[in-house]
């Protein structure tokens, strides 16, 4: 799998729910400042523009993508997978029944907001986060061919995740959750 393949991974709807709940519960200063700027400018935005919803959608996408990338990396280097690599020209599938919960390295998704009129930038803000998570997998199916991993499918993926606001060296916890996640395009049984 290449990085561009990961770009095609959909955003987990459960992560979107949690991020939306997080934004309702906790104000993100970059987002609030942007909304305040629009209000004070007296100008209008394109119809149906919802800054919060777009922010949540984008952040959820980055969180999902980071989690999946690191999970795949972790699974790929496991003993079970390495021992299963063989020079087979035809694809074959390896099923990992149950992988004990493992922590992912921290990663930092970030979102930039720019308000422009024409080509002129009037306002810019930046929000950076840190995500810590512990992942538990069941029935992970990996398709290999010629010692290369071609496809990942998760049977079930459970994530215990904490999201922090990153301000210089300080991390302020915003939200935590522990639930089963679905990753569109990567679940076994999807058509």
């Amino acid at each position: 799998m290449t990085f561009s393949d990961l770009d095609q991974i959909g955003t987990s709807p459960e992560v979107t729910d949690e991020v939306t709940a997080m934004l309702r519960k906790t104000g993100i200063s970059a987002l609030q400042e942007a909304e305040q700027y629009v209000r004070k400018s007296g100008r209008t935005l394109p119809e149906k523009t919802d800054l919060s919803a777009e922010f949540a959608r984008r952040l959820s996408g980055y969180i999902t993508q980071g989690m999946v990338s690191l999970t795949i990396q972790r699974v790929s280097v496991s003993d079970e997978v390495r021992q299963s690599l063989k020079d087979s020209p035809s694809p074959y599938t390896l099923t990992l029944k149950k992988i004990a919960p493992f922590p992912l390295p921290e990663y930092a998704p970030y979102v930039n907001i720019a308000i422009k009129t024409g080509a002129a930038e009037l306002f810019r803000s930046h929000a950076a986060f840190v995500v810590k998570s512990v992942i538990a997998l069941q029935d992970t199916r990996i398709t290999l061919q010629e010692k290369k991993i071609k496809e990942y499918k998760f049977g079930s993926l459970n994530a215990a995740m904490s999201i922090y606001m990153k301000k210089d060296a300080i991390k302020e916890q915003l939200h935590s959750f522990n639930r089963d996640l679905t990753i569109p395009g990567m679940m076994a049984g999807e058509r």
Partner: protein
Amino acid sequence: MSYYSAGGNRHRTDISSILVIAGVMILCFLGTIPVNAQVVKVSPEIKVTPATQVTSAMQVTPAIQVISAVQVTSVIVPEQTSPVANFTANVVSGPAPLTVQFTDTSLNNPDSWLWDFNGDGRIDDQTRNPRYTYQQPGVYTISLIVASRNGKDEVRKLSFITVEKQVLVPVADFSADPVRGTTPLTVRFTDLSSYSPTSYAWDFNGDTSTDSSEKDPIFTYTDPGVYSVALTVRNKDGSDTISKKGYILAENPETITDTVFATPYPVGTISSPQPTSLPLTSRVQTTIPPVTGTEETYPFPALLIGIFIVALLVAGGFILKRSGSSHGQSGEDLHIEMSGGIDYGDGLLTRVDERRHSPGENARKQEEDH
């Protein structure tokens, strides 16, 4: 197997001891026990001594004299710096809601923490020194899992936190309507107590006997007089009593009819079997009861309302003016651009995703990327 000692005594050897010794020697030979390992001995050592040659007719070849077996119960290997989980709490018991500050005291520098504050098996926090508030009474088991690249460890402290029920003693209070009138005077009493009393005891005439146990009773005073009223409320956590002296004034209708237009109501002319004989102006009570029919009008609220309306009008005009002028302004509308990415820290998978907000632009950008 048996052998003969120097004194000619026959000794039996213990087969199991020989097997243990052989096993230890084999393990040492195979190197499964590191050379710097420390073997924990729980019984005296084996002493190997050459046997003394017996001068009697029986030739005894040198043999191993086994005094007692070594029992290896554990092998301590050099420390691998795996984390050792442990924690403390600033408080372990108290009434709900109870806020507890947990402090990680794990050894060997873990870099991740998974806390379960209520023993349900679900992770509640992943910070090092979290704070948690228990809302419900109960006894809670706390688990902490710590991990580092050298391994992980878990500590579970059973029944570690005890949260007691919140004690809520009720606070008695009441109102009455009307508090003054001519006999027969029917008064409706309303309970205003807090913290959910479960029983009520009303005394409508200050004789310390309970006249009603209803929450919001109605009582009719048939005799003119000034009456004290008391209410005692109770719940499972305790009770409280409030007494309002001289609270109800039941007036003689004949007296009022004779003098209402001529003179002010005479003080001290109320007669009843149990009057408190308190002049109206010196009535002792803990609260000021509402007096019906005697409301006085004050100019102050009307002034406030007027100022508020003016402020609304001014603000409204200002807003209208601004929106009108903004429509009159020329220039392009605003549009939003959102971008972002993920910093993995090691730089291996960093990527920035630049996309415009409008759907049309998104589609064009995706086509360019592919």
